[in-house]
């Protein structure tokens, strides 16, 4: 694994593995992309180590808080309560925000959202939009749509900016460039903002990016932030960040647009305390983000707009087995703990949302395209245990498999193999004949359990050695007369 691949640069620098291949609505092959990620061992090892460190820090924070499990339950209860009365709290938020001087817009889907934003920018004559991180705008494909309208969008958060300049999606909801080595970043910045290609010192790279972005920030016509929470009783938009760029985006230009999914609502300021205590502890293992900014209304002479986006959320709310996925506060703890994610990289999922939470959200956007994703899991359940709002993620992954098999196309060969296995395992005499007709149980047993999957098994592992006799044969031989 450590020898150089043809993609390596002249100095033997390991090339950055790229994400899943996109083929329209054809199913994403996560396993194929993961294989390429694993073929870049320096990337994979650093990715695994960084995220495992986050998981360990999260555990330290958990042990420092005696009420941890109680807070998880409380967070879950508040979210479930709110989601079950979502219309009520959304209207409360709208009324309060309006009273605070905020303009509230409603977007049914991504296209409506992008159109509303574009119109606002055009009304204000803004040709540059600075923004801080928002998974929702990734979900809506905002940058590409605005680019068509001639608007330059500049991401201000370091990780997000790296990904924008490299023309890649974020690979993680909290640390979007976690899959890159610093040498990858140096290469991207050298090509795009003119930094020294031979200097991959992180402080140097961060400073270079800041120097390149500051003039844009100071002259931009509009700023955009996402929202971590929308407080219904006050109409406040709460944004949690570590770099403080959301505050620049909200406070420098004369137009502040907030993009927020409708599930971000919480009833009261008091409820916010529960989530603020859990969010950064779960995400990064730090007690709180550097900035927790409350935006309640426009500055004098400026405008503040909130776009409330559905984009499939109310449909998801109606899915009996999957509606609780809307509790998600996007902390990324499920990604950090996921042993598959840490070894695959977030871009292998080929979707806006990667890792365990992605497996259960992505199929709601496109069941065909993301039909393989629920199989990229061992169902180990660690994701459900770290979730600060107690989403039963692994059970929903399991439930998605049933839905996909029942209601959607599955590969014919897989269905045929399952049918054959099910038929053999339902008939004891056929089963016995199948595993004992030769002395070599291996030749027949795996064929009906996993069709010709032993070729795959043998790539990275030795085969199990079949014993001289099965348990059944031993029992009959030694105790055949026993009832």
């Amino acid at each position, binding site marked *: 694994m450590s020898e150089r691949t043809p993609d390596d640069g002249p100095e033997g620098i390991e090339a950055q593995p790229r994400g899943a291949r996109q083929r329209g609505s054809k199913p994403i092959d*996560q*396993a194929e992309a*993961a*294989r390429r990620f694993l073929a870049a061992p320096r990337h994979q090892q650093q990715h695994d180590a960084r995220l*495992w460190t986050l998981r360990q820090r999260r*555990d330290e924070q*958990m*042990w420092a*808080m005696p009420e941890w499990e109680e807070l998880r339950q409380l967070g879950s209860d508040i979210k479930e309560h709110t989601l079950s009365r979502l219309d009520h709290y959304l209207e409360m938020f709208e009324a309060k925000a309006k009273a605070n001087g905020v303009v509230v817009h409603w977007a049914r889907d991504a296209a409506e959202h992008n159109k509303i934003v574009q119109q606002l920018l055009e009304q204000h004559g803004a040709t540059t939009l600075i923004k801080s991180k928002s998974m929702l705008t990734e979900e809506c494909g905002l940058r590409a749509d605005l680019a068509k309208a001639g608007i330059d969008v500049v991401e201000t958060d370091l990780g997000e900016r790296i990904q924008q300049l490299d023309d890649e999606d974020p690979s993680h909801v909290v640390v979007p460039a976690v899959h890159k080595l610093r040498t990858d970043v140096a290469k991207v910045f050298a090509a795009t903002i003119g930094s020294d290609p031979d200097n991959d010192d992180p402080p140097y790279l961060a400073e270079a990016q800041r120097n390149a972005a500051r003039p844009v920030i100071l002259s931009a016509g509009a700023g955009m932030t996402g929202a971590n929470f929308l407080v219904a009783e006050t109409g406040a938009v709460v944004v949690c960040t570590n770099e403080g760029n959301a505050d620049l985006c909200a406070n420098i230009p004369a137009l502040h647009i907030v993009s927020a999914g409708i599930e971000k609502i919480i009833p009261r300021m008091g409820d916010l305390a529960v989530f603020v205590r859990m969010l950064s502890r779960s995400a990064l293992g730090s007690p709180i983000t550097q900035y927790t900014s409350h935006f309640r209304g426009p500055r004098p002479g400026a405008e503040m707009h909130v776009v409330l986006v559905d984009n499939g959320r109310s449909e998801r709310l109606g899915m009996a087995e999957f509606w609780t996925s809307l509790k998600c506060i996007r902390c990324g703890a499920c990604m950090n*703990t996921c*042993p*598959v994610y840490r*070894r695959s990289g977030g871009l292998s999922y080929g979707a806006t949302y990667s890792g365990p939470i992605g497996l259960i959200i992505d199929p709601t956007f496109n069941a065909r395209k993301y039909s393989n994703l629920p*199989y*990229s*899991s*061992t*169902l*180990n*359940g*660690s994701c459900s*245990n*770290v979730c600060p709002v107690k989403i039963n993620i692994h059970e929903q992954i*399991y439930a*998605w*498999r*049933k839905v996909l*098999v*029942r209601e959607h196309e599955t590969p014919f060969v897989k*269905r045929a193999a*399952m*049918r054959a*296995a*099910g*038929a*053999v*395992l*339902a*008939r*004891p005499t056929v*089963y016995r004949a199948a595993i004992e007709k030769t002395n070599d*149980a291996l030749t027949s*047993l795996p064929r009906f*359990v*996993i069709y010709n*999957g032993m070729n*795959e*098994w043998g*790539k*990275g*592992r*030795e*085969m*199990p050695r*079949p*014993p001289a*006799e*099965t*348990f*059944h044969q031993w029992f009959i031989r030694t105790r055949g007369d026993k009832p």
Partner: protein
Amino acid sequence: MKIGLFIPCFIDAFFPEVGIATLQLLERFKLDVVYPRDQTCCGQPMANSGYDAEASGAEALFVRNFEGFDYIVGPSGSCVHHIRHFFTALDQTEAVRDVRARTYELVEFLHDILKVDAFPWARFPHKVGLHNSCGTLRGLRHARASELREPHFSKPEQLLSKVEGLQFVAASRPDECCGFGGLFSIYNESVSAKMGSDKVHDFARASADYIVSADSSCLMHQRGCAERGNVPIKFIHIAQILNGAAA
């Protein structure tokens, strides 16, 4: 007490010694153990892949085979977890619910039902790394999972601590999944093999002579990874140690 001995298909085919140890161990406690001859599989391989209709025949056969026992005991946490938590391809008649509720994995049966506190016949003077499969750990709750803030407990550790000479060593990522995952090991072969390789190296760094588990499926996968990577470590099912296996 009448016990139905559940020998999962892959233990039947690949690990008869685990089935034998389980039977002999249960008989040491003077239990009436019956091995229903017509058993095949619990249906998990199909159900886990989402194919409930294809799993229903195997599940129905399981219920027919194991009706009427006081307990059904099997040496495979993964299969028992399926039966107790996900065995839903069938209509949930009283018979189905009854069989599901009476099905126990060997460790929890010894710990919770028989409350065994001594294995005087067992001696295992080796360094042992305990691998709790995800089905036993987070599904059947054999032990505290590292993600949860709750007091430490571990049923397999408690049983193994009664075995003379046995010494525990701990991996640095105590309950990270080893990557077997049933058909995941085939469909996502490269990630699966990497997880298994990382797992056996973690135990090897902790100087384990043996990896012990209540799941032969994890052990089959890990052994395959260890052999491929020339990691000098051995594998044994917990039933074998508790039954007094020498090594």
